[in-house]
Every structure is written in C-alpha cells, then in structure tokens.
C-alpha cells in the first residue's frame, strides 16, 4: 500500500487572474491556478513530473508591477498578485517564441503546437528561406530509441529526467552554447559509449518527439504510424515485485511503445529498461 503523505495544511492565497479572484495553495504556481481556473496557457518545457525549468518562455504572462513578463510555470503565486494571461504583450511574446522555434526546429511531431501557431497567428516563414535551422540528422545508434535533435527545443527535460530529478544516470547534458547548444553525451559519443541505462525516461518526458522509440521512428519513416489506430492499455509490469504500471500502446496487435502513467505513485512515469523496452516476449507468436 502506498502511503500518500498529506503534508502540512497549506494556506490559500488570494489573487486575481484576468480580473477574476482566484485562490491557490501556498507554493503553487501561476500555471496551477490558471489551469484550475480553466485558462489555457501553452507550455512546452513544463513537465508534470519535473521541476520547472522555464526555458521555452511560451507560458509567459503579465504580472502587475513586474518589469518583464513572468513564466507562469515556475512563478509561485503570491497574495494580491494581479495576473493577466491574455494581454497583447503576453500574446506577442508567445507568438514570437512560437515563430522562433518553428523557424529553427522541426515541430512536426510536437503535440498541440500547430493549434497554438494558428491561435497566435505565428508566421515562422517570415524570417526568410535562409533562416538558420538546427539541421541535425537523427542519431540512430542503438536498437531501442532514436535521438532526432532536429526536433529538439532544448527544454532540458531529458537532462533533468536522466540526472538528479529521476534516474541519476547523468548520461546526457547540454553541450555547447547559444544556438549551437545541443543535448549530448560526453564527447558527443554514441549512446552506446555513454552512461545511458536505456530506461527511456527521457522519451517519457520529451515534449516534441525528438526522443522516440525506434519502433515509432521506423513506423513514422515508413508512414505506418497511426495514433488514431492505437489502443492504450495500462497493466502491471511482470518483471519484478515493484509493480510498476505500464501503458502499452498497441497498433495492429503489436506493441509499438510503452509509457507509464505520470500520476502513478510508484513510477511517476518512470520505468527501467525491462519495463520500457522488454516487451518482445509478449508478442512471440511462434
């Protein structure tokens, strides 16, 4: 049985979002309050299982008295705060951020982003045909998963999941600086020469599909990947006694990907190599 710690009762703070009074628990973020109030704020680098990195800046909102816009994902709510989520200023920054990303990164597998680009009337083409792009080739150096850094928005989530927030393997880091910064293992070596333990927890948190199962990558390349034809079944991993929840993504009676529910108190979305990738025995039909 999992004991869920209730913690010390938290004070409720009163503040306003877009003029409406709201109440949020002390320590919660503006984003938490916005979501509770039904406001849709786009996020990319924010992860439900990770500490906010606030690197993408697509969730910026206006806070009365603040010189700059503030990231909703990480700014803690304060009593009396006046938050405005939909001002021209905030929308402008979100639009530019979307344009900057879409003009430099392949966002074709990023969920929701096409809708935001439309909503904010972003025009990534305006920077011209010569606008610098990442121009990375997919790194296919192992049988389990693919790193396609042309799709990487440098949200740091994989680094945090691999590092001290979850896996403590520290196989990857951000290397280089500025526009040339990339996620890499030491000496930019293949993954097979690194500290990677193939838990796939980086894939679990990747918001853009830059990290994907080899099975998904191959099916996309072959044009057979079809999420609408997939079922998701949550079950319990059979390998050890921990009892992690696995969600099997199945298409045409084949497991194509394995995730874990982020709200599962055992895994928080994390698995090990066996739970994540060791599913072939299930579908041995000979």
């Amino acid at each position: 049985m999992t004991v869920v710690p209730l913690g010390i009762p938290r004070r409720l703070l009163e503040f306003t979002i877009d003029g409406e009074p709201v109440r949020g628990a002390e320590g919660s973020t503006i984003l938490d309050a916005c979501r509770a109030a039904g406001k849709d704020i786009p996020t990319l680098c924010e992860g439900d299982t990770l500490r906010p990195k606030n690197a993408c800046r697509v969730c910026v909102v206006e806070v009365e008295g603040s010189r700059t816009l503030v990231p909703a994902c990480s700014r803690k709510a304060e009593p009396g705060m006046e938050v405005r989520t939909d001002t021209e200023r905030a929308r402008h920054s979100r639009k530019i951020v979307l344009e900057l990303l879409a003009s430099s990164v392949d966002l074709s597998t990023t969920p929701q982003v096409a809708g935001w680009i439309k909503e904010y009337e972003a025009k990534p083409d305006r920077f011209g045909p010569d606008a610098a792009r990442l121009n990375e080739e997919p790194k296919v150096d192992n049988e389990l998963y693919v790193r396609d850094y042309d799709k990487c928005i440098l949200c740091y989530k994989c680094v945090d999941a691999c590092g001290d927030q979850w896996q403590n393997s520290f196989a990857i880091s951000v290397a280089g600086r500025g526009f040339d910064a990339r996620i890499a293992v030491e000496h930019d070596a293949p993954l097979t020469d690194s500290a990677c333990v193939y838990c796939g927890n980086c894939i679990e948190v990747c918001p853009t599909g830059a990290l994907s199962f080899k099975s998904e990558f191959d099916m996309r390349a072959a044009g057979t990947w079809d999420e609408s034809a997939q079922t998701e079944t949550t079950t319990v991993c059979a390998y050890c006694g921990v009892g992690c929840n696995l969600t099997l993504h199945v298409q045409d009676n084949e497991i194509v990907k394995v995730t874990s529910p982020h709200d599962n108190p055992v895994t928080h979305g994390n698995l090990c190599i066996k739970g994540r990738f060791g599913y072939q025995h299930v579908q041995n039909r000979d």
Partner: protein
Amino acid sequence: MDLHFGDSKPTDDERAAVDALLGPPESSWEGADRSDADLRWARGGREARDRRDLLLPGLHAINDRIGWLSEGALDYLCRRLTVPPSEAYGVATFYAMFSVKPRPATVLHVCTDLACAAAGASELCAGIEARLGLGSGVSVERSPCLGLCERAPAALAIKAGDPVRTAVSAPATVHDAVLAASAPDSAPEEPPAVMAVPQAGSDSLVLLRRVGVVDPSSLDDYRAHGGYTALRRAFELGPAGVIREVTDSGLVGRGGAAFPTGRKWQATASQPDHPHYVVCNADESEPGTFKDRVLMEGDPYALVEAMTIAAYATGAHQGYLYVRGEYPRALGRLEQALAQARARGLLGEDILGQGYAFDIEIRRGAGAYICGEETALFNSIEGYRGEPRSKPPFPVEKGLFGKPTVENNVETLVNVLPILTMGAPAYAAIGTDRSTGPKLFCVSGSVERPGIYELPFGATLGELLELAGVRERLRAVLLGGAAGGFVRPDELDIPLTFEGTREAGTTLGSGVVMAFDDTVPLPRLLLRIAEFFRDESCGQCVPCRVGTVRQEEALHRIVERTGAAAADDIALLREVGRAMRDASICGLGQTAWNAVESAIDRLGAYE
C-alpha cells in the same frame, strides 16, 4: 553516484596538471594504480559532491598545461571529482577559452569588438593570419572585447605549458602580435595600469587615487597610502554600523543595474540561513568596459580590503573573487595580494586581532560574457554551466551554493572604502541627490586620451568627452556598452547620472562611453553587436537563443540597405526585440536589442 567512464587515459602531463591542483589520487577509484586498499576505500555522498566547484579550476589546470581538453584528461578530472563526464563535457564546451578538440598550444585572441573594430581589428586579424600562415603552432581566434579598449586594437596570447605564459599586445601591430604569440616571454612588458588613467596625479581622484601612486605588489605601500583604515573603521562601527553607513551614502551598484548596495547588504545580513557568502563580480565583459581591470591591476589591495568589509558587514566568512579569464595581469596581482594579506593576518582566522575570520578564493572565468550575470556566475563557480537562474529567489536569499550571498561589482566594492573613511554624509555630498559619489567612466574610441576617467556623478557627457579630447566629426556615442544605447553628438548635455540618462531615454550601464566618428560604418557596428550577443547567449531560453540569431540575420541583410529597402527587416527586428526584452530569462537577452534599437531610433541608422 555510479559514474560511467570511457577507456581514454590521460597523458602524464594531463595527469600532472590535475594532480598539481588536487593532489595525488588516493585510490584506483580516483585514477591511481590498483591496490588492495581500494577494496576498503569509498568517497561518496556529500564528501564527493562538495568537490564539484573544483571542476572549473580543474579544466583551467588542464587547459593551461596542454592547451585543450582531451577525452582522457576530462575523464580523469571527472574521476577525481566524482562528476559525471557528460556534465563536465557540457561545462567544458560552454566556455569560449576551452577547446575539446586538439589545437596548438598557443592561442592568440584578437579582439574584434567595437573599439578594436573601429581601430582596424579586421585588417590586423587578416595580417596576423597571413604572417603566421598554416602550421605556425598558433591558433588565431577572433575574440569578444578583451577589456583593453584604451589601447585598441588589442591581442592576448596564451601559451599553454608549465607555467602557462601570457602576453598582451596593445595597441597591436601585426609584428607585435605575432611576436607576443610566438615568444610571450620576450614580448615587451605591458605599460603600467596608470597609463589608462589620464587624470593620474590629480587631487580630485577618490577611487583612482592610489593607481600609479602605490606599488601594486606592496602591502606596506598600500598601508602607507591609507590602506586598511576603512577596515579599522568598520571594526569600530560594527556590522550594523557599516551597513548603515553604506545605506546612508546612497551607494548603488556600479555593474549596470544600480541596485542600492546598503539594501543588498542588509537583506543578506538578516538572513537566518548560514553560511553567508561574499562574491566579487570581476567578470568584466561588457564591450568597452575596462575600469575593473585598471582597479585590480593598479590597486589590488583596495579590493581585498573592500571585500573584507563587505563580508564583515554581512556575516560572511568566505569570499569568492571571480575574475574574467582574459585578465592575466589582474589575476596575478590579486593572487599576490591575497597571499600577502594572508601572511600579514589581514585575511585568515583573526583579522587585525578582531577575532573575525574571512578568506577569499579566486575563481577564473573562461570566456563567457553571461557569467557576469550574478546567478550565472554562481553556477560557474559551483562547477555548472554558466546559465542564469530564474529569480526569485534572489541571491540575498539563495545565492552561491544555495546560501545567502551578497554579490558586488569591483567598482561598487571599492567605493565602500571612501564611504567609511570620509563618512556617509561627506560621500553623499559628492555627485547628485539620487546618484551619489564618484563614478568611473571607460572612455574609448574616437578620442585623443582614451582611458578611465573619474568624475562625480552629474558631469555631462560633453564635459567628459572634452576631458578625453574628443576628435572632430563625432557621429555617435555608445553609452553602457553593447547592452547600452547610442546617443547623438547633439545630446552631449546629458548628465551622467542614473536618473539623468534614464530621463534622456538611455542608460549609464557600466560606465562605457565609446565615441565613434563618421568614418565608422554604423551598420557594421550594429552587426558586430548582434554577433556578440548571438555568440554570448547561453542558449537556455528561446527568445534569446534564437532571437539573437534572427536579429543578426536581419542586420546582415540590411547592412547595405536603407529606407524602404530596410523597413521590413527593421519591423522584424522590433518585434523580435520586444519579445526578447519581455520574455528572456536574464539581462543579456533583455538588453541585447537596446543598442541596435537606439541606433535606429536616435541615430537614424538605415535612413
């Protein structure tokens, strides 16, 4: 941590460089030869993690000895410090002065930034490369501002070895720069720091009064010229008394943000969490700024004394002095000053017999403008990539190593000495009501006598330029450096105060005053500023990482265009610039567009 290492081994030289810093390895787990004792050896937990801050000094040790960082060397350093190799690689590739690819032992950094560009840096670079040719054993690298603007164009040669050798050539000719690179030991000695102070000897000087007067290597000379009277006064006043004096003096930070120093000290001192730290930000990298270099080279003990006072006032017992990597002479002077002060009981367990303990560690930057941002500097000291943290929490609450920290610029700290010796009211009487005290200005470019000028706040831009002997046909003046703004030649009556420049819609920044005559092509200058920010963006947040690239592309497109042909790109620049200002994490991205915007709006560039 269960770390994974590759098979690469360090060379004997690489191993020796690391061992010289960390001592010999204790076990095969740390890279020594295998022995039975290894079975009963462990270093883990806090003991292992606490050495992380030695990563940057370790990288310097290898780079100084070898000239670049090989896989084997990096792995060995990681073993010694229990640092994941991927993170060390991320740190090593963050800094411009390190290379993870083989390169010649000698690197010649040729400054191509604003003042040097106006003084012919690109021809100099081309000349040096032609003279050296291929296979010369010298790697020529185009560098951002080296902080030698009063002697533009400038070049800095660094020759790896034991010990590492450096030579500065400024003003550089092709011949001198090549000589400095090929034989740094026999290159002519740099002129003394006082040569950068045209007012030297004047009675009016407060901050610069000892520069050129005292022997910077002599503690006795420093004391004979009033040194350590301020610290004695501080001990009389007590910590709260010092903070009261600093608050009453109206001193505000001189690094560019102009935050009230007394308030910062008070906020740090009152934090219940301990230990407290004092950090001196001597990572002076704003193009056109060189005042801190002159202070550190000409009067190093003043900084040591001022840091001691700041620590005493805020309850800190450990200080860090982060000097930029491009300042070898300042580094040498400060190392010597710290050693002397320690030997004479002015640092250490019992300072001046007052029972107060304080010491200072020097940390050397490695070529990253962003590390001048206060929280990026903390990450750099701690052995992480120099990326800014998001605020809040502010450094006074969670700073270096997550502890309450007061971080001040060199010039700010040095101002504390006259505040204590002359008293807050006398100090506050200098300057204007809202900008008190003397201020250092870094004047360079199209003037007869470039250098550091000390004037009370309130002098006008015109008065300063007249003092420096501004040349004919002035086209523009850049205030505050690359993150500052341009003003026109008909705006010379702007008072040089924080409020005066703000009212005029510009900024004082770190005190840069760079004059350009009409021979300098403005669009090229703006393109160089954009290149600077693209190169120096840490890459953490999207508005800055991609925005600086898009701005540079747009400025590149319109470098030869004006009027309607440039209008679309200027509109694009404005839109991107606005988002960078609003949505970037730190001051770098927020100010990267300032200078270009001011050139378009005030100077009518591209009209």
